[in-house]
């Protein structure tokens, strides 16, 4: 007994020392089993305890399970379409491939991916990546799977892609980093037609100048309606869109907004003028709870008819007929348009879905199968029906046209008739720290007048330059 305990004790001591001494070793993980790649490098996908087994040694008969953390889950607005799509994929490839989504809040998604990248434990499918991360970490260290050979073998998909996006995603040596964009989804705004009528506004928004729009907001206010659904929490999304639209019509702004690189300086007068107008609108034309509001609050404000307008993208359409969020028949009251001045926000620049480089072959196959599935004509049509957008090169089926949501149709016609400028959103040219949380954090100070638009611009510029490499 004595001997045994003595041995146990020495074992306990040495265990800790051994753990310390070994590096780069498959440590004693109790809940995760990590796969080792045939090549010897660390694995990328974690298996969750319980559900399905992971193919250990390349056994082709076992189902390949991909565990993907993603924010389009739970209550996130993107989950409405994404989760059923994953389900359809799982059904189509039942027994062969299966994708399991792990919930992550949208705010934390990129950060988690970065942490996983450091650990060489990237999941099999990743959506997006900010410029700095992709161009200074992923690409130079060759941590991505080159999609070019696969895309070349799938001309039916490649031909649908927008040239500018293919360009953006191709490295200097011709490798393709992430899936180039197929669907172009301009972001516009939604307005409550009833309220606009009551306020006597007849001119289409996309044909107004911003001064006329300003007058319209005042008219709404006089008629007793709160015009705008703004927010400052999270990434201040709706406010950010508004600011983009305000900026877009300033001389010289279009070029800045369409810049390929991050913009770090906001002290030019065109920014200050924009912030001035933003300050005025924040003070006069929005709800009391805009300060501190998160996306859900802003959305709720529009859906429960507390505001007349919300700046948001086409993925919100599903909410209009969701009776758990809004009243019956609300959808009929909703109109959509691009921004005053004929401004539309859209971009073909940016990284979308990509695959890490250290996967096993069957995992790569599974991931590619999903990418192919997502970009099949049926799925593309389903996507556009649910979240809007259009694919210039796709001949859409008759069913699609018939099913097309009237609101989406309205947006399309607004685009066709009144589009003058297309710009990227501020979120795309701002360094990540500014987009979230800095812009949102300084907004309350701007909104209640504690700082001037000038100071606001200076503070943001300061913050932007801080971690600039």
């Amino acid at each position, binding site marked *: 007994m004595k001997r045994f305990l003595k041995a146990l004790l*020495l074992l306990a001591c040495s265990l*800790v020392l051994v753990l310390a001494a070994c590096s780069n070793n498959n440590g004693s993980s109790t809940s995760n089993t990590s796969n080792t790649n045939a090549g010897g490098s660390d694995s990328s996908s974690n298996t969750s305890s319980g559900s399905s087994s992971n193919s250990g040694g390349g056994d082709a008969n076992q189902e390949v399970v991909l565990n993907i953390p993603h924010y389009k889950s739970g209550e996130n607005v993107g989950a409405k379409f994404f989760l059923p799509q994953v389900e359809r994929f799982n059904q189509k490839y039942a027994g062969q491939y299966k994708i399991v989504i792990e919930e992550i809040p949208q705010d934390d998604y990129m950060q988690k991916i970065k942490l996983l990248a450091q650990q060489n434990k990237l999941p099999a499918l990743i959506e997006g990546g900010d410029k700095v991360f992709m161009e200074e*970490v992923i690409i130079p260290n060759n941590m991505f799977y080159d999609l070019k050979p696969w895309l070349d073998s799938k001309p039916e998909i490649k031909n649908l892609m927008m040239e500018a996006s293919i360009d953006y995603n191709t490295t200097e040596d011709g490798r393709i980093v992430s899936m180039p964009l197929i669907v172009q989804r301009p972001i516009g705004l939604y307005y409550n037609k009833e309220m606009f009528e009551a306020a006597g506004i007849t001119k289409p928004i996309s044909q107004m100048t911003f001064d006329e729009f300003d007058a319209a907001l005042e008219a709404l206010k006089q008629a007793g309606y709160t015009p705008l659904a703004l927010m400052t929490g999270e990434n201040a999304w709706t406010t950010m869109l508004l600011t983009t639209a305000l900026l877009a019509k300033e001389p010289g702004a279009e070029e800045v907004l369409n810049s390929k690189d991050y913009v770090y300086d906001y002290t030019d007068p065109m920014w200050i003028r924009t912030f001035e107008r933003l300050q005025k609108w924040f003070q006069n034309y929005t709800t*009391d709870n805009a300060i501190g509001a998160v996306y859900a609050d802003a959305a709720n404000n529009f859906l429960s008819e507390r505001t007349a307008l919300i700046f948001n993208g086409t993925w919100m359409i599903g909410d209009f007929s969701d009776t758990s969020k809004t009243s019956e028949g609300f959808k009929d009251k909703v109109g959509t348009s691009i921004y005053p001045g004929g401004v539309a926000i859209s971009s073909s620049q940016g990284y979308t879905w990509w695959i890490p480089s250290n996967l096993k072959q069957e995992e790569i196959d599974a991931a590619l199968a999903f990418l192919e599935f997502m970009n099949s004509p049926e799925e593309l049509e389903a996507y556009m029906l649910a979240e809007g957008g259009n694919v210039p090169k796709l001949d859409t089926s008759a069913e699609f046209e018939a099913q097309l949501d009237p609101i989406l149709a309205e947006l399309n016609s607004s685009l066709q008739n009144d589009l003058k400028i297309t710009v990227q959103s501020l979120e795309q040219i701002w360094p990540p*720290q500014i987009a979230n949380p800095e812009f949102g*954090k*300084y907004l309350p100070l701007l909104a*209640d007048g504690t700082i001037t638009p000038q100071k606001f611009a200076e503070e943001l510029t300061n*913050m932007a330059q801080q*971690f600039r490499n």
Partner: protein
Amino acid sequence: MYNWKTKLWIAAFLAPALAVFVLFYLVPIATVFITGFTKWNGFNSPEFIGFDNYIKLFTYNNTFAISLRNLFFWSLIAATVHVGFGTLVAFILFKRPWGWRIVRGTFMIPNVISVAAWAMIYKFIFNDDIGIINNFMRYIGFSDFHVKWFYEMPAAFFAVTFTWLFYAVIVMLIVLNDLMAIPKEIHEAALLDGANEWQVTWHINLPLVKKAIGTGIILSVTSRIAMFEEVALTTRGGPGNETYNIPLMLYNGIVNSEYGYANAAATIMILLGVGVMALVNRLFRMNERLY
């Protein structure tokens, strides 16, 4: 003194704790000190850049200055109001009034709840729509009371302060324990000499618990230095950067993969903590024997 066998056992018994210390304290702290002088993003090897991180921390913009300002005021408030309140409660409970056990019991509850949960609860308490504070103010007549607690200054500073201000149970327990350890003879002697309750409290008890109060100050001020959840889960350092503190700067460094920068901030936190302990020790002459 001991035979070699015993010495071996002693060593073996110390080994695991020593291993923990080396792995989780010595090495990390050394890393923190050293990499504070490097530029490092976690992927490439650290490159030595001298005091650049510190210079950047101190001078880049006013965030560090604001953090220090906040720390100064929060520490002041902690050392006075927070510790003061804890001491007050301790002195009151010392007299064993009716219900003292209930007070002692419930006072501990906020401390057994995760700080994260507590911060979140307070986020709701200060919420303008549904929170008790604003609704209460509107109820008693300030119908226009719409202070956005976490989004305006100086409201944000005070809102964050309130989440920990009166929750001084640890201080209370430490002081109470010291109070109970005072030999009864001293009290009896004083009462015999004609002192009244108040004089006993003020001139005898208070000085005798100096050490406990000092410990309380050390613990509460070092908590302010390291306070993270209370700020990160409420104001995120805002509005603007008005409620920033050093742990938040450290966290930013990690999130932006600027590990050298983050560790420079960490070094400062450690030095501040050590400094506080040395200072309080000095001020309170805590190493002296009192009786």
